[in-house]
C-alpha cells in the first residue's frame, strides 16, 4: 500500500513535468464539470446585468432579504475581502458573487449539488467602494441581495 502510494505520487509528478502531461492529467483529474465551458462572456461583461445574462441566461432578479451576505462594512484591503453568502431559500442550484464596482463585476460562480448547503465563503478583490451582490438561482428564478463595502486603500479607517 505504502510503496504503491509513493509510486502514484511519482507517476503524477513525472506526468506533470511535460506540457503534454499537464493536459493529460488535467483531463484525467477533471471530468465533465471542468470541461464544461467557462462562461467567458459572463466573466468579461462590464456590468452586472450583462454578467448575469451570460451566466444564467437572464438578468432579471428579484430582491430577497433571505440571502445573507457576510462581508465587512469597511475593507481595509480591497485585495482580500472575505465574503460569505448564505440563504435558506430552498432548492438553490447556483450562487454568483459580484462586486458591482469592479471592471468585470462577476467574481465567482458556484454550482451546488442537491446535498450542498447554500452557504459558501470565499475571498474576493474589490477595486473600489461598491456593493457586493449575491445572486442565487433557485427553482429557475433569480434572487439577489446586496451589501455595501467601503474600500479604503492604504487607509487609516475611513
Amino acid at each position, binding site marked *: 500500500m505504502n510503496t504503491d502510494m509513493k509510486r502514484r*505520487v511519482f507517476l*503524477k*509528478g513525472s506526468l*506533470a513535468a511535460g506540457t503534454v502531461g*499537464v*493536459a493529460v*492529467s*488535467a483531463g484525467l*483529474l*477533471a*471530468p465533465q*464539470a*471542468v470541461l*464544461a465551458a*467557462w*462562461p467567458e462572456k459572463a*466573466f468579461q461583461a462590464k456590468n452586472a446585468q450583462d454578467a448575469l445574462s451570460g451566466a444564467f441566461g437572464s438578468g432579471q432578479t428579484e430582491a430577497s432579504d433571505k440571502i445573507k451576505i457576510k462581508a465587512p462594512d469597511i475593507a481595509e484591503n480591497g*485585495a*482580500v*475581502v*472575505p465574503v*460569505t453568502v448564505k440563504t435558506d431559500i430552498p432548492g438553490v442550484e447556483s450562487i454568483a458573487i459580484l*462586486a458591482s464596482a*469592479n*471592471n*468585470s463585476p*462577476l*467574481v*465567482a*460562480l*458556484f*454550482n*451546488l*449539488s442537491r*446535498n*450542498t*448547503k447554500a*452557504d*459558501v*465563503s*470565499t*475571498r*474576493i*478583490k474589490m477595486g473600489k467602494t461598491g456593493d457586493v451582490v449575491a445572486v442565487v438561482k433557485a427553482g429557475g428564478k433569480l434572487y439577489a441581495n446586496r451589501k455595501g463595502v467601503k474600500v479604503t486603500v492604504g487607509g487609516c479607517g475611513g
Partner: protein
Amino acid sequence: MAKSIKIRAKEKKGVVTVKCLISHPMETGLRKNKKTGKLIPAHFIQDVVAKHNDKEVLTAQWSGGVSKNPYLAFKFSGGSKGDTITIAWTDNKGQSDSKSAKIK
C-alpha cells in the same frame, strides 16, 4: 504542484464543513509590473471541482476577481467521518492540481 491545496473537512451532526486554501497568484491581467510598466499576464483559476467520494458536491467558476491564494468554504449534508473529499482546480493556462483529504 500537488502541494497547492490545503483541505480541512469536518463532520458534525451529519453536516460536513469543508474549508480549503489554494496557493495561486490569481493575476487578473490588469495589473502592471511597476518596474517595466508592462501588464502582468492573466493567470487565475477558472474551474474548481469538489467531490465527496467521487460525487460532485460543488463546482465553481472563478474570474481573476477572486483574491490571491483563494479560500473556499462550503457545507454539505450526507457525509460521514472517514469519507474522502477531493478538490481539483484548473487555471486559464491549463495547469491543474487536485488533492484528497479524509473527513474528520
